[in-house]
């Protein structure tokens, strides 16, 4: 058991998550060049350097504030199922919007690897990405890949391996908001950590509460009730 890890593939819609999933697991998750091809979870496994990885392909999301059911599926998985590593798959040709989601994921969980996919397309368009700068600025590994052409996989697998075996550590650089927001975050944050402890990032949850994410609240309460039931039955 301690030799097996769960890796979730998150990212904007249509960034090649299912393609990467297929390349890893050899499975046949369907792909399509449109936002919203995948609407539910798919799981597969891959073995690398004596370790087993369970890969979870998620529906794409524009943000962690879920708007539709498929996005909610993805969001709930990252928040509540807590994969060992979250691979955020980004589209190299539209990094600005894609990074927006990556930043949100970094607020939520620590072990994140950022994969910049479709690097072949980006090169064709003359887009040059300096992943070292991004790694430094984000505090987590940033790796350029092409899921379709299987470029950058050794590096990616190696990074995963070093992360789970503790040889490297992620220190996500948090986004600092303006003073007003930061103040309010601090007010709420302390109360949240009393309530949830270390299970969920309290800074992130504080932001979501300020944001007014009702769906998240509902889901949170639902899971709380479920947990209570399990505890009572045990």
């Amino acid at each position: 058991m301690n030799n097996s890890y769960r890796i979730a593939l998150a990212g904007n819609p249509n960034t090649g998550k299912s393609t990467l999933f297929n390349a890893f697991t050899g499975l046949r998750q369907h792909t399509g060049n449109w936002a919203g091809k995948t609407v539910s979870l798919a799981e597969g496994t891959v073995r690398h350097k004596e370790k087993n990885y369970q890969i979870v392909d998620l529906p794409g999301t524009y943000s962690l504030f879920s708007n539709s059911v498929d996005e909610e599926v993805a969001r709930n998985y990252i928040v509540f199922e807590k994969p060992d590593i979250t691979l955020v798959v980004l589209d190299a040709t539209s990094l600005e919007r894609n990074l927006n989601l990556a930043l949100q994921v970094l607020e939520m969980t620590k072990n994140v690897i950022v994969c910049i996919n479709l690097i072949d397309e980006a090169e064709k368009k003359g887009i040059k990405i300096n992943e070292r700068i991004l790694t430094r600025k984000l505090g987590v590994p940033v790796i350029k890949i092409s899921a379709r052409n299987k470029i950058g996989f050794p590096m990616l697998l190696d990074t995963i391996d070093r992360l789970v075996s503790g040889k490297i550590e992620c220190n996500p650089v948090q986004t600092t908001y303006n003073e007003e927001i930061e103040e309010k975050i601090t007010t709420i944050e302390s109360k949240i950590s009393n309530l949830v402890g270390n299970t969920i990032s309290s800074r992130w949850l504080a932001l979501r509460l300020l944001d007014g994410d009702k769906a998240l609240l509902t889901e949170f309460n639902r899971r709380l009730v479920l947990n209570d039931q399990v505890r009572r039955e045990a």
Partner: protein
Amino acid sequence: MNMNELFSEAQAISSPQLRDDIVQQLYSRSRELCDVGVSYTKTKADTRTEKLDAIFTSKIWGFPIMLIMLGVVFYLTIAGANIPSSMLAEFFGWLEGYITSVFQFLHAPDWLHGILVLGLYRGSTWVISVMLPPMAIFFPTFALLENYGYLPRVAFNMDRLFKFVGAHGKQSLTMAMGFGCNAAAVMSSRIIESPRERMLAILTNNFVPCNGRWGILIVLASLFMAANFTGGFKLLVTTGVIVGIVLFGIVVTFFVSWALSKTLLKGVPTHYTLELPPYRRPKFFDTVIRSSLTKSWTVLVRAVKVAAPAAILTWVLANIHIGDTSILLHMVEFLDPFGKMLGLDGYIMLAFILGLPANEIVLPILLMGYLSTGSLTEVDSLVDLKQIFLDHGWTWVTALNVMLFSLLHYPCGTTLVNIYKETKSKKWTFLAFLIPTVLAIVVPFIVYQTAKLLGWV
């Protein structure tokens, strides 16, 4: 203090402006990151996608191209499947001879041969030879279009029409999924954000004929509608008829969406955002292999899994007698008057009822029913097939009405289960059953009565 109280507290100190600021500041940081981490070496933007969009979403060509695409996909499917289908059928027929000899050699009782060979074997091989070749062509062709990026353009072109009937433009995407499988398409409706429009997409998805229904549509179109044509022209006419049926399904979708928007699902169209990704050349080989092999295989396994028991059941019903008629005939006689009103008959009604678990098995069950009353013993070719239908009084109106019934009738069992899972409501699942059923009765009824009035039949 619990989470709900915290939520209220947070909301009390929050404001819409603050929420906007959060997103905006995230975006500013993204932009800063891009400024330092990304550089552009080409000054000229890539205009390939733009040029293609100028054609695919053009005022003049947008709609004709969609129609042509639909036609081409179906033409390839029908034309390409023709020969492999008959080869498979021949092969299975040849194999059946040997299997029967083995049964005779073992002195197996007649009833066993009946159930296993005449029921199970024939039923499932029929499904394989009629369904597999079209699927093996359709799925990869469609997957290529899909991976290329054409589907969002369809949604872009069609949105105005969907807005008009109060539906969501992404319904065209879920409908496109419906060609493959309605059950999967019902799940794909998750991409529609608003519950009302999502429900519309779920309730009407069935009016797109899934591949399980093409077998019957293609066979009947080529036997009855394109009968007077030969060669390449016959294929064209068959394709034309199928495209016509599909278009009629789309019209019905619009009509039902509109009617529901005015009644049970009242409301104005809500939010709509659609991303148009750049066109990307698919990895040809990968896409073709993945979709033809795996997808056809899964669909086929499902079909055979359902077809086998259904075939056995039909055989049993046809061979157990109450009085001097079989159970099957009793049922047929009971359903016959109703079927006749729609220009159909008791066998057809029974086949559709027994076919609830999966549309693929409707035609084999129908044939087994007809055959059990003994006119022909083996279906070697399509000509024999047509003779069976003619012997049971079919005309082109019968064929048309069977096609319409197949297009419009209740979703298959798997789809209904998925509808229940997605809506979590018995009421809506029941409506998803009821609305198509009513239409499947009303439309053929009108067609038949009109045809009778005009003296066509």
